[in-house]
């Protein structure tokens, strides 16, 4: 039990540090590339939503006695939908972030897309470890993600070689696969948690 709370506290601390750093980075990033106040407002909203989610986590765990580990039935019906929604929201926000960086050079977009893939993979790994994502879905996400990475690597290699048109073509293919992955998650995740 103690280790659970310690682990939980470590995650919270890590998250707070990460968000503080990320918010500053995002603000500077978009100030440099995008002065559209709507976009800045969107990221403010994202930060607020993240804060609200964390606050709800704190609120739910305050003033309650230390609890027993959750039983499998509780896990299956208690929080899976919420976890999936959060994972999907993070994924879609990453895609939104990519689209907001439309004015950046192609190579920067490729790097952003690759980090988007990394973000999805990290979230999926955490969900598989927690038992909230089944193995088959985790494997599917891994396979699709590696396909996206293959096209992104090819796109970057083409740009380095001076072939920007080929780089753009490979990037479009990667984006198509990312959209397919999003569609897969939307269509299969809620049914795949059994």
């Amino acid at each position, binding site marked *: 039990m103690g280790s659970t709370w310690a682990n939980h506290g470590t995650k919270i601390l890590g998250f707070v540090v990460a968000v503080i750093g990320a918010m500053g980075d995002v603000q500077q990033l978009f100030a440099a590339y995008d002065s559209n106040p709507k976009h800045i407002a969107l990221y403010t909203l994202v930060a607020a939503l993240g804060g609200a989610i*964390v606050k709800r986590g704190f609120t739910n765990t305050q003033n309650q006695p230390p609890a027993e580990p959750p039983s499998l039935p509780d896990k299956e019906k208690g929080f899976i939908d919420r976890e999936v929604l959060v994972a999907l929201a993070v994924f879609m926000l990453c895609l939104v972030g990519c689209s907001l960086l439309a004015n950046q050079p192609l190579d920067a977009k490729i790097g952003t897309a690759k980090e988007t893939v990394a973000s999805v993979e990290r979230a999926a790994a955490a969900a598989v470890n927690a038992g909230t994502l089944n193995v088959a879905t985790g494997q599917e996400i891994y396979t699709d993600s590696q396909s996206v990475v293959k096209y992104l690597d090819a796109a970057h290699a083409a740009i380095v070689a001076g072939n920007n048109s080929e780089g753009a073509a490979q990037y479009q293919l990667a984006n198509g696969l990312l959209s397919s992955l999003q569609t897969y998650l939307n269509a299969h995740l809620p049914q795949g948690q059994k």
Partner: protein
Amino acid sequence: MATPIVIAADVLDALVSAAQAIQTLSPILKQMQAEGRTQLTSAEWDTITQDEAGAAQALLAAVQAKRTP
């Protein structure tokens, strides 16, 4: 009432993964913009590649661990 604890941990995992991606990417893109470059340096690309490879490895390890009886 252990479920709220698990919810918070899972939510944090998902959000931290996104924050990590931003933290890795942001200084690279800012440096590109500051120097007026249109291409990532090999070191920058390696940083992104290693980050993704680590995430992919973590996902694969999680899947394989769950498959192991």
